[in-house]
Structures are given as structure tokens and as C-alpha cells.
């Protein structure tokens, strides 16, 4: 349970990831089309992997990296499903 890097650095890292996440949320709320929102959701999933890394370094527990791997794969599957849904909306071939 000891931080592997200095705690002030990790706090700055969490703040930067939080700012990036709020920019993604702005695009999810504002984005004029559905693909804009899908891109922002995909990017938000990648940022959550970064959050898991920072938390793993802060607590020294390695199960956060298991969460990161599972999150990356599930985010990919969700994004592919949304993209296929978008593609089939106007074409039926």
C-alpha cells in the first residue's frame, strides 16, 4: 500500500486526466452527430485505462491493471458494436 511514485506527481496526473475526461464529456454532450459521440465514448474508455494506471501506481496494488486490460477490451467491443449500428442505419445491403 505504498505509492510507487511521489504523491504530488500522481495528483497532478489525476487532475490532467480529469480535464481530458471533461473535454470528452463536452464532446459527448455537444457533438452534433452520433459518430461524434461514439468517438468521444471510445476516447473516454482509453482515458479510463490511464486512470487505472495512475491508481495502480498510487496504491501499489496490481489488480488495477487487470481492470485496465478488461476495460480496454470491453471498450473496444462496445465501440465496434456502435460503429456497426451506425453503418447499418441508412444502408441495407
Amino acid at each position, binding site marked *: 500500500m505504498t505509492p510507487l511514485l511521489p504523491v504530488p506527481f500522481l495528483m497532478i496526473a489525476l487532475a490532467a486526466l480529469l480535464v481530458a475526461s471533461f473535454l470528452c464529456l463536452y464532446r459527448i454532450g455537444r457533438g452534433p452527430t452520433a459518430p*461524434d459521440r461514439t468517438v468521444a465514448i471510445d476516447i473516454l474508455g482509453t482515458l479510463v485505462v*490511464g486512470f487505472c494506471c495512475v491508481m495502480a501506481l498510487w496504491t501499489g496494488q496490481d489488480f488495477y491493471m487487470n481492470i485496465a486490460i478488461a476495460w480496454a477490451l470491453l471498450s473496444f467491443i462496445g465501440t465496434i458494436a456502435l460503429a456497426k449500428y451506425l453503418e447499418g442505419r441508412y444502408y441495407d445491403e
Partner: protein
Amino acid sequence: MNEIAAQWFIGIGLAFDLFGTIGLVRLPDVYNRVQAATKCVTLGTCMILLGVLLGAWGGAMGAKAVLCAVFLLLTSPVAAHAIARGAYRSGVRLWQGSVVDRYGEDIHADHPRAERAEPDQAPADTEPDR
């Protein structure tokens, strides 16, 4: 020594993440946004994972970080390509300043039915918002 290198890697990765999301907010249409966001954020998060490898040198955490970086590098371009293809085929129009549209030429040569995605049939909410 490893800790200093880990902090540099994580700092550069965070900068890439921030620039990628700023591009996601500032650029004019879906295709520009998917370029900026996917490339910058994938590289940034992979650098954060390399920082975890250096900061937790020799443990199970580093091996899992490498595995996660490999997964991200494999899946992120595939997801971006699927989103861009789905956006184009669902009728989202390019920005007015775009100069080339090879995929559109290809579709219209192969499938004459793709005329349905021309501007008169496009959804009303596809105006670029800046």
C-alpha cells in the same frame, strides 16, 4: 533512476492525452476528430503504461501494463476505422474545407445505389458546429 524515467514518460503521455482531447473538441468534423483523438490518446495512454512498467519495475504490474499496451495498439486503430467507415456510410458529410474524398469516389463507382447518401438525403443535424 527508474522513477525519474517513469515520471517523464507519464508526463509526456498526459500531455498527449490532453492535446488529443483538445483536438476532439476543436476540430471541425467527425473525420478530423477521429484522427486527432485516436492517434494522440492511443500514444499517450501507451506512454502512461510504459511509465507504469518503469515505475513498478520487476513486478506483475509491469507485465500487465505491457499486455494492456499491446491490446490498445491492436484495438484502437480498428475501432477508429470502424467509426469513420460507419460515419461515412450513415451519411455524415465532410467539412466544407475538405479537398479530397477518395472513399466517396470508390463507393459511387461501385454502388450506384449509394446516391442515397447525397446531401439531399443527409440527416439535418450534420452541420459542422464551428
